[in-house]
């Protein structure tokens, strides 16, 4: 379980990195990168968006799985802590842009400064939440082990 959570946090971290790259990359394309090389740039960019898209669903699924596990274990407190995020995920996915495949992010709007900033902020917040819960679960697990 812990491992899963860790994976999740790790995945999210990558997502943040991806967004950060999206934002900062090419803004200061210091000598290293020939800005006139659109293909390379483009491939990279689209890859990043795809990474982000690919990471979203697993993250949601893992989180959902956690919630189910807490429910089964009757860990009501922990579950209640996680429910808001679950609700947020559901809402977020319901209000995603029109698209035929799975995914949250629309490549045509992701470069909009507002949306990019929002996605980044969202990523950081969730990362913090996952880390805190990770330590909380760890503490809970050790506590259980010790007390039993």
């Amino acid at each position, binding site marked *: 379980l812990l491992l899963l959570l860790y994976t999740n946090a790790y995945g999210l971290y990558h997502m943040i990195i991806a967004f950060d790259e*999206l*934002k900062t*990359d*090419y*803004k*200061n*394309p*210091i*000598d290293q990168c020939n*800005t*006139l*090389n*659109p*293909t390379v*740039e*483009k491939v990279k*960019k689209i890859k990043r968006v795809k990474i982000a898209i690919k990471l979203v669903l697993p993250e949601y699924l893992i989180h959902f799985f956690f919630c189910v596990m807490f429910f089964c274990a009757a860990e009501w407190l922990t579950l209640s802590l996680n429910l808001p995020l679950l609700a947020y995920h559901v809402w977020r996915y319901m209000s995603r*842009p*029109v*698209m*035929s495949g799975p995914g949250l992010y629309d*490549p*045509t709007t992701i*470069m*909009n*400064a*507002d949306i*990019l900033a929002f996605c980044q902020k969202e990523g950081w917040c969730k990362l913090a939440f996952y880390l805190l819960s990770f330590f909380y679960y760890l503490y809970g697990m050790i506590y259980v082990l010790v007390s039993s």
Partner: protein
Amino acid sequence: MSTAGFNSQNGTGTGQTYANGPSQNPVAPQQLPGVGYGMAHQPTYNPMQAKAPPPPAHPGLYPSGPYQPVTPVCSYQPGPPHTSYPAASGQSLLTRPLMGGPPSRTPPQSASPGPRVPAAHATPPPPAVSSSGYYTNPQHPMAPAWQYNAAPQPMGPPATISTPPRGPVAGHVNPASSSTGPPPSTAYSPAPPPPPHVSHNVTQPPGPGMSRSPQHGYTQPGTAPPPMTPMAPHAYQPNRAPYGPPPTGPPPPTMKPAPLPIGLPMATNATPPPPRADGVPPPQPGTPGLHLGHYPSLPPGYQNTGYQNASAPHNATSPMHPAMQHATQPYTQAPPPYQQPHGGPGPAQLSPSLAAMSLQSTTPEALRVVNLLQERNLLPPTPIPAPTPCLQQDLQKINCHPEVFRSTLTSIPQTQSLLNKAKMPLGLLLHPFKDLSQLPVVTSSTIVRCRSCRTYINPFVSFLDQRRWKCNLCFRVNDVPEEFMYNPVSRSYGEPHKRPEVQNATIEFIAPSEYMLRPPQPAVYLFILDVSHNAVETGYLTVFCQSLLDNINALPGDSRTKVGFITFDSTIHFYNLQEGLSQPQMLIVSDIEDIFLPTPDSLLVNLNECKELVQDLLKSLPTLFEKTMETQSALGSALQAAYKLLLPTGGRMSIFQTQLPNLGVGTLQSREDPNQRAAAKDVQHLSPATDFYKKLALDCSGQQVAVDLFLLSSQYCDLASLGCISRYSAGSVYYYPSYHHQHTPAQVECFQKDLKRYLTRKIGFEAVMRIRCTKGLSIHTFHGNFFVRSTDLLSLPNVNPDAGFAVQMSIEENLDDMQVVSFQAALLYTSSKGERRIRVHTLCLPVVNSLSDIFAGADVQAITGLLACMAVDRSATASLSDARDAMTNAAIDSLTSYRQSVLTIQQPGLLAPACLRLFPLFILALLKQKAFRTGTSTRLDDRLFAMCQLKYQPLVYAMLMIHPALYRVDDLSDEGALNISERTVPQPRVLQLSVEKLSREAAFLMDAGTVMYLWIGRNCHPNFLTQVLGVPSYATVPDNLYLLPELDTPESQRTRAFVGWLRDQRPFFPSLQVIRDESQLKPTFMQNMIEDRTESALSYYEFLLHLQQQISK
């Protein structure tokens, strides 16, 4: 009473009186809120006004209008005259010098004022009135015109008196106006005291009666008289307001440098203005108080408004002379009485005031305070020029042309917080690939760029010495390459700053091979034609084939140019045009689920080698499908096939579609409910129904394929979904609603001309555009048709000369220590000749740190254009009502901010800086634009097409869509005409979009960008009908006339020259529709009368009141 007040004002106390006035005003505003303009003024007035005043007020305004017709200047003057009258004494003194011209005007104006004034006295009771009332009567318009005529007569008597004042006013206002200033001075000397009274009285008197009603036409008989009186009060109030502003104006002066110089020159003409600016303002405040007493009796401010309006027009007319205008406006604005005070001070202090002027010159014209509630004729008679950034002259001279590169704020705020405080959007509007008559092209093996940020060297870099230059975007110091030391133009060595790159803000480089990822692609054109039953019915195929046949040699390209054709209904038809075939071979693919190319190599053929086959095909195509009964349309599959065909090369595909795709992939359903077209509430289905077209567009974009969409449909086609195919692939959308080859000849002509332009215009392939800006600024959002590939990079598979872009900017770091910032747009493309080229535009703008400077640099057209783009986005992501609210709030916020942060003296009324005086009007126009209107029946596709155009059109054309230009064309004269290539093009003035400006005896041309309407009044002069339209009488004007007959009469030549000139200015072809009063198109024409009230929308005046209410909250 009033006279006494005036006198006192004039004498010395004017200042004091003004002061009083202001105080009063405040009170009035409070009460007024409910009412309208009148409200702003004193409460007492309001009551009065409320009753009947409003109408009068309008009349007042109208009168001014009527005058205007006579002469642009005059018209303005009419309004001003009134004000001027009062001011006359003071103004006259001031203005006298200038006045030379004014006299002429003065008579008419004065005349009107005279009558009015009396009325005012009498009418004061008419209270308030309802501005709305005026508006409400949409029909009155006609009347106004009459009134104009009538007005002069009434004026006669008063005129003598009033004239003098006007003269002065005129002088102030527009030097340009012919009226002579001198008269005023004289006049007022005698009349000074009286004039004021007179003016007041006059304004009202006219109302009393007849004079007004006639003049005002719109006021209409009954209302007119009462209104007049109300008006008078208003006038006074307005005056106050104006006064207030003037004072404030001086403080702001930041702009001064540039404006002042200008102003001064102008001033010479209008010397009076300066006085106003300086001394007048203070006096005014005082006067108000005095007036107050009078005012109460006086009617609402309408008259004043009228005056003001008049003055405003002057300003408008004489935009050039900022100083003048400032001065004049205040004066003009101030009701006559007030003006007198002003004038009084002016005369008395002439020399001092002048001195002050020079000092104050600091107050830029752009910051002159305008009370929108009182000034009606704000619209300048000529197209509005872009404001000039406040830069050093040498920089200004080489700055990028505003039609190519324009900023919403010509002075960039130093910090984001300052920008937030100003509540105005910061952004750029670009037209990067515009057809330019002069474009320096540089061929050089090394293109000099900053090593750090890759900025192209431009005129705004600084040379530290002969060998080093400092980038103006990232401030890195770079070396000047050896090659750059040699100047090919002057053939001299060692003068890098004289190179063309450093002398031109717009320049084109021919790029060396480092700028290519692959060999430049050939020009490839693929045409995808709908040949279903529906399409054949419209008859577009014939027109298309004929156009292409005619222009086949004019297609941009070189020896490698390729063309291909695909037709589709429920199956996809390919055409094998391979060299050697005796005739084109049609290949039908009916497996639309899994599309494939039957013979990949021979579908796209070299145009030069296979021209005959192509021509054969074009000749046989229209007959080939004549009898088809296939009604289905498999557009999605056809697009996939086309994409596969263009995959290896990139290029352009042009889709001609006439119905909703209803077979195979990309199928769309009809989402429009015709009963909801006029819904006052939210409009649904503004966003795409499927992402099929978007994904395909992104694929196309990746392969350098652009998709242009021609939609010729009489039914709903879901442009929201279909449009995505063009939007993300940098294509363009053309829409011909209800196209039919017999029933809509105007559409056919339009389609033909558009096609010709489309086929022959310049084109750039595999393009990217990067917008760089000085460190600290960043790009927030892009608007237009493209795919955003990076935060500052747009991917444009094709770029065409008719595409505009907009960019929202934000300030990420404080621009402390910077005097100027620069923006550079670099467009890298492959020309149709296979050359890789880079077109670079650089814009340099000053940085300021005070709110007043920011307001002074606001570009109202650019702001409107950017807001329209933002509103289109908002309608798609949120809702239409959200977008509408956002636009209204934009106006409220910026005016509130101006009032709270820039104005030092709080006054009643709706105050705006002169540069933003048209802002509420444009916002209202946007709200009534097809794209955003509610309550009026609008087809979803029409709405979406309007939205596309707002985002995609360059600003000049978008502005015409938003706020059409109205001209009176039955009395075109060669006066002030332009001479273009031996043709004389008359230049009638632009009229306000209000029915009041129409006249049954005249003909009007409305230029709405993509369409022009020629409206013929019922009693239109027979001369115009016979000489221009070639018909004997009004009744015989055909209903579907869309061409002006080529008659050999001077009237016809003038009219055709004018219409032709308007058409030549834009790349697309606006169709011309002649409209009679009974015509079915009349509602369409009337919907463009945005200043009038409609069933579902506010009139301009009501909208201003709404703004005022919100602002005073």
